[in-house]
């Protein structure tokens, strides 16, 4: 890269001597790029400017990494605590992603802000795969999109299948009330037999797993209970309070959706901060590498210009003497 820069600067002199007008234009373009107007010797200005901007970028990405790290710490404990909300539900009602229903709703959880690595793309990829899996002659799949980034990606090819889109969720710190109102909105506005929530489960700062959590509607739970398995054991539970099994199932599935969605949104937010941390870290490392290479170029250019000046002075002096 340094050699290419020197070659470019050397070529600056040659086209100036040719009479071809195209070459003259090109040479002026080249000299504009390499040195400011009116500079007499090889100038290091351009390289210096580039070094300054790369250094600023490095500082900014380092700061973003620190911010993401602090946010991660705060939200990680909350996400881990919220796991206890839906685990009893999975123990009771099971999580059966292989259930075959007519109306599938895919809830894709993503972030509003960018610069967070590949988490949103993986969520969208999985949602699309789910959609393909669940769209057949009698079945259909619709999207409920949480977050700007997934909305932007899903608009491109699945516009017709989007039912709801939710943004600006993270303006206030995430809390259960907010997610509950959101879940309420979804339940009221969307008809579903099975809700499949796609999110990124947080494992560690550098590792997150794309996950699908399935919540069934009460009718489907009834249907699956008849075919046995975990849901078939529901009848062995005693129901207090004089409610029917159907009512209890309805309350349970609604509450299950609220809890699972809360956990999904928290885990996704944690994964987002973790992914942003590692993205900004690799970005500042790349900026550091770029800075090293530019420094080498700068030094070589500087030494070359000093040598050129020396040669000119000495040859001028020897011409005077001789």
């Amino acid at each position: 890269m340094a050699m290419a820069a020197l070659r470019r600067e050397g070529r600056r002199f040659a086209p100036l001597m040719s009479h071809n007008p195209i070459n003259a234009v090109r040479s002026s373009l080249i000299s504009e790029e390499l040195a400011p107007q009116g500079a007499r010797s090889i100038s290091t200005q351009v390289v210096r400017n580039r070094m300054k901007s790369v250094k600023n970028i490095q500082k900014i990405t380092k700061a973003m990494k620190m911010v993401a790290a602090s946010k991660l710490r705060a939200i990680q404990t909350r996400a881990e605590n919220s796991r206890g909300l839906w685990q009893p539900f999975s123990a009771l009602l099971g999580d059966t992603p292989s259930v075959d229903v007519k109306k599938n709703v895919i809830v894709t959880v993503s972030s509003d802000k960018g610069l967070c690595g590949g988490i949103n793309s993986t969520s969208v990829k999985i949602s699309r795969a789910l959609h393909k899996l669940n769209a057949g002659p009698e079945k259909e799949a619709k999207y409920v999109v949480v977050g700007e980034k997934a909305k932007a990606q899903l608009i491109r090819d699945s516009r017709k299948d989007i039912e709801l889109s939710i943004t600006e969720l993270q303006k206030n710190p995430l809390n259960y009330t907010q997610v509950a109102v959101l879940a309420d909105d979804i339940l009221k506005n969307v008809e579903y037999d099975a809700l499949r929530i796609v999110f990124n489960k947080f494992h560690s700062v550098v590792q997150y797993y794309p996950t699908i959590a399935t919540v069934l509607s009460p009718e489907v739970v009834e249907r699956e209970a008849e075919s046995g398995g975990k849901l078939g054991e529901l009848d062995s539970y005693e129901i207090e309070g004089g409610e029917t099994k159907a009512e209890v199932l309805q309350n349970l599935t609604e509450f299950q959706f609220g809890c699972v969605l809360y956990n999904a949104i928290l885990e996704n937010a944690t994964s987002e901060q973790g992914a942003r941390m590692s993205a900004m870290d690799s970005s500042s490392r790349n900026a550091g590498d770029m800075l090293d290479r530019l420094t080498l170029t700068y030094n070589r250019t500087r030494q070359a210009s000093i040598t050129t000046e020396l040669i000119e002075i000495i040859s001028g002096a020897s011409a005077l003497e001789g």
Partner: protein
Amino acid sequence: MASAAGSTAAVPFWRAAGMTYISYSNICASLVRSCLKEPHKTEALNREKVHFAVSKWADGKAEKPTLRSDTPGE
């Protein structure tokens, strides 16, 4: 006591009014939060802030988003 025979069972008052279980439990929770004393009350009310923008889509077009920015207590 209402009989537990199928669809003739009396639904609870909130289900008949169109609420889901989630909204019912939310209202109960906000009632409990407003029973607290200071300073715990303000901390708890901070946990109730809701803000998001939801827009329904029809035919591949998004309608104007409705901003659900409630003050605490729904």
